[in-house]
């Protein structure tokens, strides 16, 4: 077994073993420590994956993994244990490992109220991590589906066990809605497998084995499945409830990386396997993406609950990502990938901050929050930073994804795409409007009764959890090449095999 293969296995095995060890630990704190250590080791294991052969060897294959591992598992179901990593998946893999580590570390400091034990929460976070990492690493369609499903129940348990007052309903809505997406994925996967006779993503990418009719059917099913997960308007309605009720760490994982399974799947699986279908459906996808941007922003303008507002802002941001994918150009796909990472970093930070504010003031209502700057200037400052990053200020991470998505749409040309680009830009302006409104309501003004008694300091654990995200938001903003240099090869390879 080569070093690369070993790393691929380790990236999945470490959190899985960590989850078991954390759940089986005798003490609650020991369990949380063991889990956090496993998450840290996982992050360490993801980093060296970047080594290996990166060269773009030519147009023969749409996926050229840096490392891969291919073992037979269930031949009767066309399922192979086929893992691999390339420039599209690696940044997401690292982001997942990082956010999970931060969440586990945060849990070390504070276990959300709700009745469940801390070590169980850490174990569930690690199981979710296994599912997400597996989804990003899978190079077999059926394996991809399998990992896609793994996250459902642990995430349900996190929301239902440690969430807010209305958590059961929100958790049920989340799991049923996203299972609906998953089962469509199952049907879509086997539509492809039955027609092509293989589930190998490397062989399938480019769609040369599928007839046009099959591609249209497969793309419809797959795109619907991923649209539920991303979520794309109008299939997003599970998201605000889940976010509002989920505990802070749940929200961070959910917004930070779980949604990316949808956009990643759209690029790697739906576009990769059924490019004809993608071309055929691109205008619809583009229109829906822009609708998501505009509607998400408008809803945010009228939103009075902090976490709900951030949740709806996710709908808008994922709209930009999907618009980038819908253009089917190199610029657009690059925009989608960097948008994914930026959203993961910034929204993760925003949810951490919203959780901190809610924990301190016991309210998330914007009406009851004002003057945060007066009593908790550091918290207010960080919130300001995250909001400004999220609204797409040049120099911070959020800018690149939005700007390039708009540019890709305008460059695509034609009346429809130009209009979509202009409307998306307008949506970007609306994003700025609602984040500035949020800042005005929360940090400025006279301290409200809820905000008045706050202590100005931040806990060490909070700073430790937030600092990497702040730094990453800056780093990706100043040097987008951090993500784009890895992504350009695979994106060109993917586009090279599209008809």
């Amino acid at each position: 077994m080569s070093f690369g293969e070993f790393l691929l296995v380790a990236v999945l095995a470490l959190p899985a073993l960590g989850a078991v060890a954390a759940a089986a630990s005798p003490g609650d704190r020991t369990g949380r420590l063991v889990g956090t250590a496993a998450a840290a080791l996982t992050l360490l294991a993801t980093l060296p994956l970047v080594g290996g052969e990166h060269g773009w060897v030519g147009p023969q294959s749409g996926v050229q993994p840096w490392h891969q591992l291919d073992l037979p598992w269930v031949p009767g179901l066309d399922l192979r244990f086929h893992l691999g990593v390339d420039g599209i998946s690696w940044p997401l893999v690292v982001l997942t490992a990082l956010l999970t580590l931060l969440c586990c570390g945060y849990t070390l400091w504070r276990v959300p109220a709700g009745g469940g034990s801390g070590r169980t929460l850490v174990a569930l976070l690690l199981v979710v991590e296994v599912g997400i990492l597996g989804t990003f690493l899978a190079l077999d369609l059926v394996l991809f589906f399998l990992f896609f499903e793994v996250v459902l129940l642990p995430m349900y348990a996190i929301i239902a066990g440690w969430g807010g007052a209305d958590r059961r309903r929100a958790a049920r809505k989340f799991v049923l809605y996203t299972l609906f997406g998953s089962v469509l994925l199952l049907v879509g996967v086997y539509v492809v497998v039955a027609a092509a006779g293989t589930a190998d993503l490397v062989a399938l990418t480019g769609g040369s084995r599928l007839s046009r009719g099959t591609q249209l059917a497969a793309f419809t099913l797959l795109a619907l499945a991923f649209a539920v997960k991303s979520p794309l308007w109008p299939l997003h309605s599970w998201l605000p409830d889940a976010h509002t009720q989920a505990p802070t760490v749940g929200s961070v994982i959910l917004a930070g990386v779980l949604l990316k399974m949808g956009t990643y799947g759209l690029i790697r699986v739906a576009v990769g396997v059924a490019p004809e279908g993608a071309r055929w459906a691109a205008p619809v996808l583009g229109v829906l993406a822009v609708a998501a941007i505009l509607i998400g922003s408008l809803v945010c303008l009228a939103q009075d609950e902090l976490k709900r507002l951030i949740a709806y802002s996710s709908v808008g941001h994922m709209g930009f990502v999907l618009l980038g994918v819908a253009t089917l150009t190199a610029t657009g796909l690059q925009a989608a990938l960097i948008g994914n990472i930026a959203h993961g970093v910034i929204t993760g930070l925003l949810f951490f901050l919203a959780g901190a504010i809610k924990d301190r003031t016991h309210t998330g209502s914007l009406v009851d929050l004002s003057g945060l700057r007066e009593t908790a200037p550091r918290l207010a400052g960080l919130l300001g930073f995250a909001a400004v990053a999220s609204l797409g200020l040049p120099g911070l991470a959020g800018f690149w994804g939005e700007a390039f998505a708009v540019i890709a749409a305008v460059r695509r040309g034609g009346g429809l795409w130009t209009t979509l680009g202009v409307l998306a830009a307008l949506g970007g302006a609306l994003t700025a409007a609602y984040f500035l409104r949020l800042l005005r309501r929360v940090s400025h003004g006279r301290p409200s009764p809820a905000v008045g008694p706050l202590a100005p300091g931040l806990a060490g654990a909070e700073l430790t959890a937030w600092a990497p995200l702040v730094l990453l938001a800056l780093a990706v903003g100043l040097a987008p090449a951090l993500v784009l240099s890895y992504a350009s090869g695979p994106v060109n390879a993917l586009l090279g095999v599209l008809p």
Partner: protein
Amino acid sequence: MSLVQSVDHVALLPAYLAAGTAVLVLLADLLVARAAVTVAVAATGAAATALGAALVGTGGERRTFCVGTDCSYVFGGRAALVAAVVALLTLGVLALSGPLLRAGRIPVGEYCFLLACAMTGGVLLGAAGDLITLVVALETLTLPLYVLVGLRRGSLAGAEAAVTFFVVSVVATALTLLGAALLYAVTGTLHLDRLGATLAASAEVRDLPLTTVAVALVVVGLAFKVAAVPFHAWAPATYDGAPLPVAAYLSTASKLGGVVALLAVVQRALPATVTGPVLALLAVLTMTVGNLVALRQRRTVRLLAWSSVAQAGYVLAPLGALALAAGRTADARTAAYAAAVAYLVFFVLLELAAFAAVVALRPADGDGGSLADLRGAARRHPWVGGAFALALVGLAGLPPGLAGLFAKVTVVRALLAGHAGWLALVVAVNAVLGLAYYLRLVATLYAAPGPATARPARTVVAAIGVATALAVVVGFAPQLVLDLAAH
């Protein structure tokens, strides 16, 4: 043609073992008259039957009771699988019966004897090569169950359940027999393979209205046994009135018997042009109605009963692919039958684990109770509760219940291989409906603790352990089941 048949006793060994178990149990009860001995004899017999079936099954196909090339008893790979699974299920149900038998409201000898008789029917069923053997085997499987359902002394619900079950089941058998008789009238044969060949060869015979009626009668009669909608109404009432281990047997072994019988006639005898559309319709109705009604259930056993109605729909679904011409190619048909059998094996394993957990979490002589009675059970009994949750999640078809997930995947794959995408979508949407109520039960298990319950009996815990361990093993290595099913 010689009138003296040579009988292959090796092929009949599993049946001898099963029938011998029943006789021995009866004798042990008469002569020794100690409950422990009777149960031990029954358990040993069931284990021996499973072992015998497995051993005979590895030796290749054996035929006996033949007239020319048509044989009434064909013990091949699938027959061995069915026989072994039924014997193991009997063993499992015996393990579940410990607390019930100790409570003393049920005569131990009779209970074990009847269970062994039912096992004999199940062991024969997979090997049946003609319609009469098939119906006799199925009746041998079901007949003892009428009594078992109502065996509890002084239980009105049990008696009601037994009568409902009896009446419906007898009507169903009558329908099947009528269909068999009409088929005989049309084709002059009862052997499954000969029937299939005759109907395939002659379009004239196949297109007779009488043939269609006969085929429909056979299928409908067997659909009653499977509790497929709209022939399902007896199942929830019967399950709920029966003692819990008997309900477990009804929803696993008895359901398996019905499906195997249906599969035998559909695969070997009846024209797919007629059965395909009927089965597709039955599958859609069964899944959807079962799941929708299960959503509203407040009693544990009724919920499991309706869910097992829905599960029968998933089992039938791959056969629904036969409705379309593209689903009737040789490859697609083989895949469809194998998928149905594989789903069945995954299902009985998870269902047995679920029922075992209900038995463990309820008082010795109690019924399934309401969902509220299980509130917080998994917090007080983390292992049993965890196994229950795993079984339920598996029945819903989600990880970590990988066995159930692969079962659903097998069905969807077979359907798409047969170009029945619409049916695959129905299965998929039903999986979402199913999760809603399984999840409610799981959430109840992990809710804040309710009243305390006694320690589960040791045999029951052992049964849960074995069933869960098996479910985990086939969850990671589903190829084992797929290979067995494809024989």
